[in-house]
């Protein structure tokens, strides 16, 4: 079953075509890597899929909802985290969980259970009353991810979640992603780390607003006759005509 269906999706800003007729599907429970050079159109496309921006033309359904007519239900059924905005630094760990859980309409009982379970999984039971700002970046990102899937969304969108995170924590973060995918949550993730592209079930690579390649990492490596995703990325993105 597809949780994301995109047909000829296009977004123009004036005479600049940021997203140029992209079409693809993402299956339920899949880890989908959304790669591309800076300025290729990834963020614009992702904002459309999150119901935050209206496309110029084309169609898209997210979690079964139409992004034109049902943007609000789309938002209720997705989770989102980015490297820049994750949580409120001047709120405590439990306050952030309470805030986001409340926004997504979880009951007090659900919230209590979920908070306890989440902090146990993250080994952060003793950090309940800690201000988020005083946590190391890696912990913040793991917490932000757990908060983004607190309401059991169908899909979670992750925009460069591991940038600047240390190598060990980066790998722990990916284990959280695997666990979420095993629970049936679809993961839609962008990254500049090519080793992380290997952890995805399928990977798309955007070049100048188009999706120029889409397949499993092993099939892409075969297609481009190479042994690393870095080379695949390089041979595609090098052709890009536009900068950021």
């Amino acid at each position: 079953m597809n949780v994301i269906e995109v047909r000829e999706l296009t977004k123009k800003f004036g005479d600049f075509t940021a997203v140029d007729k992209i079409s693809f599907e993402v299956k339920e429970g899949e880890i989908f890597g959304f790669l591309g050079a800076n300025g290729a159109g990834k963020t614009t496309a992702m904002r459309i899929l999150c119901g935050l921006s209206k496309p110029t033309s084309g169609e898209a359904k997210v979690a079964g909802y139409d992004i034109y007519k049902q943007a609000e239900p789309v938002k209720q059924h997705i989770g989102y985290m980015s490297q820049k905005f994750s949580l409120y630094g001047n709120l405590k760990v439990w306050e952030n969980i309470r805030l986001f859980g409340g926004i997504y309409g979880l009951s007090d009982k659900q919230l209590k259970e979920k908070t306890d379970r989440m902090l146990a999984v993250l080994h952060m039971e003793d950090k309940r009353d800690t201000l988020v700002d005083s946590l190391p970046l890696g912990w913040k990102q793991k917490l932000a991810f757990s908060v983004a899937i607190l309401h059991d969304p169908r899909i979670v969108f992750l925009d460069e979640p591991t940038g600047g995170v240390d190598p060990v924590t980066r790998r722990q973060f990916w284990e959280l992603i695997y666990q979420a995918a095993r629970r049936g949550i679809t993961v839609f993730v962008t990254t500049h780390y090519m080793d992380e592209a290997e952890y995805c079930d399928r990977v798309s690579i955007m070049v100048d607003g188009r999706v120029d390649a889409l397949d499993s990492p092993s099939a892409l490596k075969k297609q481009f006759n190479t042994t690393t995703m870095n080379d695949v990325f390089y041979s595609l993105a090098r052709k890009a005509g536009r900068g950021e």
Partner: protein
Amino acid sequence: MNSVQISHITKSYGNVTAVRDISLSINSGELFALIGPDGAGKTTLFRMLTTLLLPDKGDATVCGLDMRKDWRQIRTISGYMPGRFSLYQDLSVEENLEFFATVFKTTIQENYDLIHDIYVQLEPFSKRRAGKLSGGMKQKLALCCALIHRPRVLFLDEPTTGVDPVSRKEFWDILSRIKEQNITIIVSTPYMDEASRCDRIALMRNGSCLRTDTPEQICASFPHKLWSLKGKELYQLLLDAREYPQTYSCHAFGDCHHFIFKEENDKADDLAAYLRMKGHEDVLIERLEPSVEDCFMDFGEDDQ
């Protein structure tokens, strides 16, 4: 000759120690990287070396100049590109460059050869306001402004963070060309794979310097035999490999896992048999040379 000499520098903010007793000597003309994640202390160290911040303890010299006494001179011979874009957004590309040249009492013409390679890409936008440039273009302009007075030492704080792999490679190609001009370059990065582009690197974590050496020497001194594990179900393979009693560590590394035995004389055949029993019929185990990332992760493996 030592271009930058750092001895026992410490800097705290309240009760957080950002830089802890760091000593380094960086040679003249060297391309040197501080490699470490967010919070390692890289930016604080840069701010002290560029005389924007004083250490609590310790001393440093830049080209023989004392950071406490000779800060004025240090500023005239250093180029600094901070992590956050800090040019004048309301000035055009050309005006920004002109401004930095004037502040350092020189002209664009005088040192144009140094930035020519980079600036040609910006020239079509020379009248555009810096704030309206794309990320990649801003970065190139910032580099031009840091170079326009022909500094003897160039400090670049995370110039490639959040940058895609193709642009990262381009940026490192530019740095290699600047190095040929006999400018000492000190660059920080969270990307371990950039180590191979440097003469020497310092691995940093939580304010401390773990190791300083050439990337080759750091890899050569890796204290374990490293193995790669490949299979179809990579995540399950990772979980099962960690359950094996003789496992010291097992980490995901792209299309394979990097595995270390507790005892060096343990046999890969036994591990293969165990993993096959767990259902990984296709498991492939091979010897592997460590990368800088393996070395970084191995520091402090015990306390994680």
